[in-house]
């Protein structure tokens, strides 16, 4: 049935070659148009596991404690301190500029120049105060002196002014919508404005402008992602050279590359038609699609050229190659697709989209490289290049490699493989989940954004690595001593956890305000037992502070952490859970978690939870496809075991290179397995045919090498080259993905030509030896 179906397809396709070609051209034109419409998409919610319990808490209270979309701009003076006319002019300029950027919440723009920045001092008959920068401020020595003393009274050193007076801050929050247009705020546009209208305009000689915040980070990531266009061109160029070395024919070099580009165009066009956008992670998928396309194209050319060499016309050689490769090629590509689809099991939007993007891309390759390419080849005049023939007949090399399939060398290979596996397995246990480096994880530590982050966290008492524990209780709970005191105890216990730098909550503010109402006497720095006094101590804290909601039934404790490394997050999360259990009750519930580190904690947990199921699914799919196509348990084993060894070694590599298991590296493992299986399938499909014909393992492997060996080598190299260009990316996670994928592609190829035959030598040994003897 299978053969007859394939036959029918084959006959149908090649009889109506021109029609098929026309269809491809029309479809390509349509998708090309669609692909040009694709937009860059960097929404925040796509990056988080929305169904995780922490994120449910986060989403539930986001409207009250949103506050995550802030912009911090630190203006610094490299000549010592900020008290000079130049600096104050620049600071005022930045403040005003930011104020007028559409989408910035104008009420919340805060700096020395905002009227809400006031000082209060205790005097004998009550309080006295005023704006830190008086209305009649002149940047003279006297005026600056007044401002300096007001800054000290206002207690804003560390928040609005740097600890060492070398910088001052302008803070702003972003709205959800652009008030001018009523449309959803374009984060990338804001980032562009911050760069062009704020930094470029006010940064000069001794004044530097440092901008951080989610919008700016996304802008920088998007900017960095644009660099991949260059890498794509580079990948195409190197691949073309590789293919040319393989086939020594410009025509044969162009065809697979063209077909693969068609697959990329179809994939992008289809994404755009389906309403998906490109994000900095899925922008890498075209590379994969292209590389996979070329690698399968090479197999096709290899087959056609060999058949032409035996005297067939290009047309019938193409047709015969289509017949020969439809099944192994189809199975290999299908297993790639399934490998990608397993990623759908991970409940993080960005990974799901990656799964869809990648599987669409690979599905397109089935059409372009298994159908379009042979059809195009059938039109082509092919001169049999002596070189291609020679490569296949390089029997010295192939003969040597074929010895891997005899028992003696196989024993040595398997022995070393076992050692590598054990060491890799042992070392790979050290694999950490989450981000292992400080700064924004998407970007390099040396990037401007991360350098600015380090400067700001260094000079101010500000941390960008914070997590909010949300306390859910009853309305007006902040007016009850018991609730506030429980929160205070929780906060204190958290402050004592290693990795927590400091913490703030309505309770801790209440204590400071209470001391303020009592002449600033530190002995009154307690939560007032008296309810009216307690109300007084919190009455002036607005809900915009992010410390309470409108009826104070929900209050967060914000924990500022030393960093967002996986170990730190785990320690703190464990401590929060334990303390919440000890202090929580029906009335006062401690819920994880909000804030950037809360999101990371949820993501880490989702990644950790997804790891095992994803591996099971991807291996399950690969095993199922092998069983179906080879109908042999032995064949399945020899394909899958080397894959597993390589996956284990990849974990070792990650541990050794300090690459954590994250949203971006987790899919790589699935991709690596899904694509890595291709080599094994190509080699084994020839081998198993020969074995069935009664050949022994050594000879069957030799035949497979002659037929597919050079193509497999070229495939591995092409794939590796395609992804290795990511090493030079501006984005840290692309570099990590590039390293891992390059490793997976190269080492899986080596495993398929070294470990696979060695395993076969033992699994088929009896039969093979019997026949030989």
């Amino acid at each position: 049935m299978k053969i007859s179906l394939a036959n029918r397809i084959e006959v149908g396709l090649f009889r109506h070659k021109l029609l098929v070609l026309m269809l491809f051209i029309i479809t390509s034109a349509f998708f090309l148009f669609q692909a040009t419409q694709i937009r860059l998409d960097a929404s925040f919610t796509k990056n988080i596991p929305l169904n995780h319990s922490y994120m449910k808490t986060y989403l539930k209270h986001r409207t009250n404690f949103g506050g995550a979309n802030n912009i911090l701009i630190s203006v610094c003076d490299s000549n010592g301190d900020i008290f000079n006319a130049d600096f104050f002019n620049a600071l005022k300029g930045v403040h005003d500029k930011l104020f007028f950027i559409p989408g910035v919440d104008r009420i919340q723009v805060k700096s020395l120049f905002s009227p809400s920045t006031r000082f209060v001092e205790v005097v004998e008959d009550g309080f006295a105060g005023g704006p830190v920068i008086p209305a009649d401020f002149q940047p003279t020595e006297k005026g600056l002196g007044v401002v300096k003393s007001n800054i000290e009274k206002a207690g804003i050193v560390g928040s609005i002014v740097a600890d060492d007076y070398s910088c001052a801050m302008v803070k702003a929050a972003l709205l959800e919508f652009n008030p001018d247009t009523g449309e959803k705020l374009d984060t990338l546009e804001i980032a562009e404005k911050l760069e062009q209208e704020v930094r470029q305009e006010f940064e000069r000689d001794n004044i530097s402008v440092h901008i951080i915040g989610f919008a700016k980070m996304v802008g920088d990531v998007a900017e960095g992602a644009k660099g991949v266009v260059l890498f794509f061109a580079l990948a195409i160029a190197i691949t073309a050279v590789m293919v040319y070395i393989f086939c020594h024919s410009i025509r044969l070099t162009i065809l697979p590359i063209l077909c693969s580009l068609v697959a990329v165009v179809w994939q992008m066009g289809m994404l755009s038609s389906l309403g998906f956008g490109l994000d900095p992670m899925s922008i890498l998928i075209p590379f994969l699609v292209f590389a996979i396309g070329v690698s399968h194209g090479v197999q096709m050319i290899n087959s056609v050229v060999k058949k032409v060499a035996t005297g067939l016309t290009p047309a019938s050689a193409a047709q015969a190659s289509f017949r020969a490769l439809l099944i192994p090629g189809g199975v290999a590509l299908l297993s790639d697709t399934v490998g990608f689809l397993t990623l759908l099991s991970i409940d993080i939007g960005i990974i799901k989209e990656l799964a869809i993007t990648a599987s669409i891309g690979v599905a397109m390759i089935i059409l372009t490289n298994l159908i379009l390419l042979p059809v195009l080849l059938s039109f082509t005049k092919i001169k049999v290049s002596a070189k291609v023939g020679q490569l296949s007949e390089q029997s010295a090399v192939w003969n040597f490699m074929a010895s891997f399939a005899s028992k003696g060398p196989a024993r040595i290979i398997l022995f070393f493989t076992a050692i590598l596996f054990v060491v890799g397995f042992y070392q790979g246990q050290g694999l950490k989940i989450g981000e292992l480096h400080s700064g924004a994880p998407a970007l390099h530590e040396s990037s401007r954004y991360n350098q600015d982050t380090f400067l700001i966290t260094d000079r101010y008492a500000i941390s960008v690595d914070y997590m909010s524990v949300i306390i859910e209780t009853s309305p007006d709970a902040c007016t009850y001593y018991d609730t506030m005191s429980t929160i205070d105890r929780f906060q204190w216990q958290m402050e004592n956890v290693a990795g927590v730098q400091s913490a703030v909550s309505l309770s801790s503010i209440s204590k400071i305000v209470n001391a303020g109402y009592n002449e600033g006497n530190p002995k009154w720095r307690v939560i007032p037992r008296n309810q009216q006094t307690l109300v007084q101590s919190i009455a002036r804290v607005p809900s915009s502070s992010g410390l309470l909601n409108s009826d104070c039934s929900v209050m967060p404790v914000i924990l500022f952490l030393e960093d967002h490394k996986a170990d730190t997050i785990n320690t703190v999360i464990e401590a929060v859970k334990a303390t919440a259990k000890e202090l929580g009750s029906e009335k006062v519930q401690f819920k994880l978690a909000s804030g950037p580190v809360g999101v990371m904690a949820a993501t880490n947990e989702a990644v950790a939870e997804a790891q095992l199921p994803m591996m099971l699914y991807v291996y399950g799919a690969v095993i199922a496809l092998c069983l179906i196509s080879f109908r042999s348990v032995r064949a399945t084993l020899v394909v899958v075991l080397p894959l597993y060894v390589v996956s284990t070694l990849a974990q070792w590599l990650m541990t050794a290179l300090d690459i954590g298991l994250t949203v971006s590296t987790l899919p790589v493992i699935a991709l690596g397995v899904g694509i890595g299986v291709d080599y094994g399938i190509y080699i084994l499909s020839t081998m198993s045919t020969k074995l069935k014909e009664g050949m022994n393992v050594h000879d069957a492997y030799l035949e497979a090498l002659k037929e597919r060996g050079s193509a497999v080598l070229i495939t591995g190299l092409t794939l590796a080259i395609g992804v290795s260009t990511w090493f030079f990316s501006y984005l840290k996670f692309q570099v990590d993905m590039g390293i891992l994928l390059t490793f997976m592609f190269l080492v899986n190829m080596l495993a398929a030509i070294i470990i696979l035959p060695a395993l076969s030598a033992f699994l088929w040994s009896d039969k093979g030896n019997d026949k030989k003897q």
Partner: protein
Amino acid sequence: MRLLVAFAVIYFISISPVFADNTASTIAIPTPAIESPLASKSLLLDISLIGQEKLITVGQHGHILLSNDGEKWQQANVPVQVTLTNVFFLNDQLGWAVGHDATILHSQDGGLNWQVQQYLPLLEKPLFDIYFKNPQQGIAVGAYGQVFRSNDGGITWKNEFHQEMLLADDVEYLNELKAEDEAAYLDEITFILPHFNGLVQDGDSLFLLGETGLLARSDDFGLTWQQFDNFYQGSFFSLARTQTGNVLVVGLRGHVFRSLNNGSQWDEIPTNTTALLNDIVFANDERIFILGNNGMLLISTDDGESFSKRPQQDGKTLIAGVWFKGKLIAVSDVGIKVVDLSQQ
């Protein structure tokens, strides 16, 4: 500076000090303090010497810490998590500490283990100072003119209402109220007195200092008090007699007063700061230090006739201090600090 008082008067609380001891027994048992790595780096409110070789400090969350060198601190076993404001040791072994919720704690083993002698959260008032003149007789004072007295080493404490500390206007008002509404009167007197911020022993006398310029002396261990003529409207927080026998008193907004004649006349010493001044500390030489909020440190080398400013860079509030082995060791809102006395 009567903000809080005024506020409390409007919303008075239905607890009479007379019944305070009885209500205490119905209150839940307090939660013991937990051992915390950051105890010595968080808000501490008093520090004191036990003998010459040991330091003790108390602060928030029921923290009591002991040290032999001022660097390594050991947390004592404390049965409350209440913020403690003051600690006093009579000798090497016997000590008392007071704090919020009118808490009085006692130790008989040099500060390692503590027992509750009084815990009255329903009073909603803190105690600020405690002094024992012998193992039996002690007196504790606090906010809203609270005075507690014990004659049995703290096993029982009795509340005293010191009417003589009332302002003249308040006396009239209270008399009227008492005639009209006995219950309202009883409520009123729980909050009408000024805060008593400190007790200072001076020979056979005791000084009491507090809110609204309160400064008084007692020769009968606090049974009766003689107030000095009012020379300042703000609060006083610390008083001390210098080596040459003159008296210094410090308080709100950088105010320092000095008397050469035991208090019959006071001269204001200019300090050029508006920081709240918390404590006076003597070095073993002629230096006198005044510790204040926002890192303010004042130094005198002329018996308090003049002070120079030496503000600490970090701006942390210096709350109390002792001179220990040639160093000024202070407590602050970020815990123990060895004060930087170098010239800047």
